[in-house]
């Protein structure tokens, strides 16, 4: 990113730059950045290898044999596969995300509505976002996971811990996402709404056709941010007894006294979150350049 793209392609070299500083631009700039990167990485890696406890850290956390064993698991002896557990994380975050987007938009829509009939719903929606953004997710997971089953309400009380975990994640994240949507809706200039209304569109149609398309586009990066965060928080569902990647890794660690499974679980999470983060960055960049182009 910081290679100095403009300078590389610039037809007229900047003659006012002192010669000493030209080392940092152009082809030699590339060499300089490569050397500094290699040195930095080498320094970090050597700290890892030279630390007094380096050998034991490598044995307990980066042991190839144990990393592979924890990844594939051995269910007969109670060693559950971290890889298989990760599928639980993936389906939980996908199902939850769909529910969260739908419910979050609904809550945001209610909060920005002006109809007097919807007044009690507006109060309810405000109270909901206030309460569930304020309670730690872990507590919500506990309350839903152990509270709902004890209510003895037919099918609501006989679900698996994965389902209760999903409910808790959806409840908490909907509150966050609703606020993100609301911010998006408010980011649309008032003139847009006034123009739509003056064309004869109803309040609802204005919302659907004018406000939401513009507002939602603005908040796609923060929404993806929440999605990444949700993906990681699926690990919290393990407290209800669900076997997901982090819990499977903990079981492996507590049985074999080797924490390599924890590293495997971390790598699996990274395999999803890093591409997502890069994707979010690209969306942000594209959105920014579009807006700048529109201004020009």
């Amino acid at each position, binding site marked *: 990113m910081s290679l100095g793209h403009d300078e590389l392609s610039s037809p007229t070299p900047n003659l006012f730059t002192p010669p000493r500083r030209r080392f940092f631009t152009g082809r030699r700039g590339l060499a300089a950045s490569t050397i500094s990167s290699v040195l930095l990485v080498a320094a970090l890696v050597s700290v890892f290898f030279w630390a007094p406890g380096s050998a034991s850290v490598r044995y307990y956390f980066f042991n190839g044999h144990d990393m592979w064993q924890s990844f594939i698991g051995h*269910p*007969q*002896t*109670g060693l*559950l596969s971290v890889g298989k557990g990760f599928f639980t994380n993936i389906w939980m975050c996908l199902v939850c995300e769909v529910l969260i987007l739908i419910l979050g938009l609904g809550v945001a829509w209610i909060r920005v509505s002006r109809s007097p009939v919807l007044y009690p719903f507006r109060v309810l929606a405000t109270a909901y976002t206030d309460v569930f953004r304020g309670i730690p997710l872990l507590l919500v997971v506990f309350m839903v996971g*152990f509270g709902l*089953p*004890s209510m*003895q309400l037919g099918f609501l*009380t006989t679900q698996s*811990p994965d389902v209760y975990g999903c409910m808790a994640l959806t409840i908490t994240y909907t509150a966050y996402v609703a606020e993100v949507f609301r911010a998006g809706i408010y980011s649309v200039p008032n003139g847009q709404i006034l123009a739509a209304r003056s064309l004869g569109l109803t309040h609802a149609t204005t919302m659907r056709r004018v406000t939401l398309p513009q507002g939602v586009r603005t908040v796609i990066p923060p929404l993806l941010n929440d999605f990444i965060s949700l993906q990681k928080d699926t690990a919290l569902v*393990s*407290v*209800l*007894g*669900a*076997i997901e990647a982090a*819990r499977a890794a*903990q*079981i492996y660690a*507590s*049985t074999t*006294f080797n924490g390599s499974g924890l590293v495997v679980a971390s790598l699996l999470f990274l395999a999803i979150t890093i591409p997502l983060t890069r994707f979010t960055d690209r969306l942000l960049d594209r959105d920014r350049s579009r807006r700048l182009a529109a201004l020009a």
Partner: protein
Amino acid sequence: MRTFRLLLAGLFGASAFTGVTFTSGPAGASSSALATCRTTINAEEYAKGKLTVATDNPVYTPWFVNNKPSNGKGFESALAYAIAATLGISKSNVVWAYEPFDNSYTPGPKKFDFDINEISYTAQRAKAVTFSESYYNVTQSIVTLQGSVVAKKHSPAQLKTYLYGDQIGTTGLAYIYNHIHPTQQPRVYSTLDAAVLALQTGQINAIVVDTPDGQYMATSEVENAKKKADGLQVGQFPSTGEHYGLLFKKGNPLVGCINVALNTLKSNGTLASLTTKWLNIYTSVPVIKP
């Protein structure tokens, strides 16, 4: 909750260990060894002329009574005095020291001769400290709710069909996998309290936990909405070799004489009668097969 930290590795080490314990020590050999110990014991003690015994504070029945280790009541208090008496140490020369449970099995110097505090032998701990032979064999037991189907149907085949829950890294969880072999994946919780909560809210059928903890859980911890005990300790499984041992500083030579005394108490029936007297609530739990 002490034994929960005992893990699979410890289990295998322990079973090999106790296999030797119960077959060794002919009576004649140990009586001459005992005579030697009575004369050499003073030189090996932490405070010369005194037997310094450590335990946690508070301590609980039936291991101790009224949180007073020096009253000779409760299984572990009575056992400590019985060991002292066997080695010819008078009651007044037994001194009690305080040692928190979590500190006990860490490496390093110790301010006592031995610690008696329901500490499970594990291979892992045995690298940092020295353990005596077993003075109590811990069994695993099954705890469920009163009126649960598990209460009536617990043949080995039926036990396989239930949904179990347990705390991560416990001997109970290892027992479920290695001996019960259930058809459904057990639920694994971070704490035992979470497993109890899951049992109470009907998310699991049963918990496997060591017999002393299971007894407490069934009678005091699992309650219904009317504050009545709602738990049921269905039965205990045969011993797998998990046991409590007296804990010494790593390499403390005193362990030799204490083991001689323990074996004497085993062969003359004192240990058995102390177990019957104080631990009847555990030994009376019916034995069932996994």
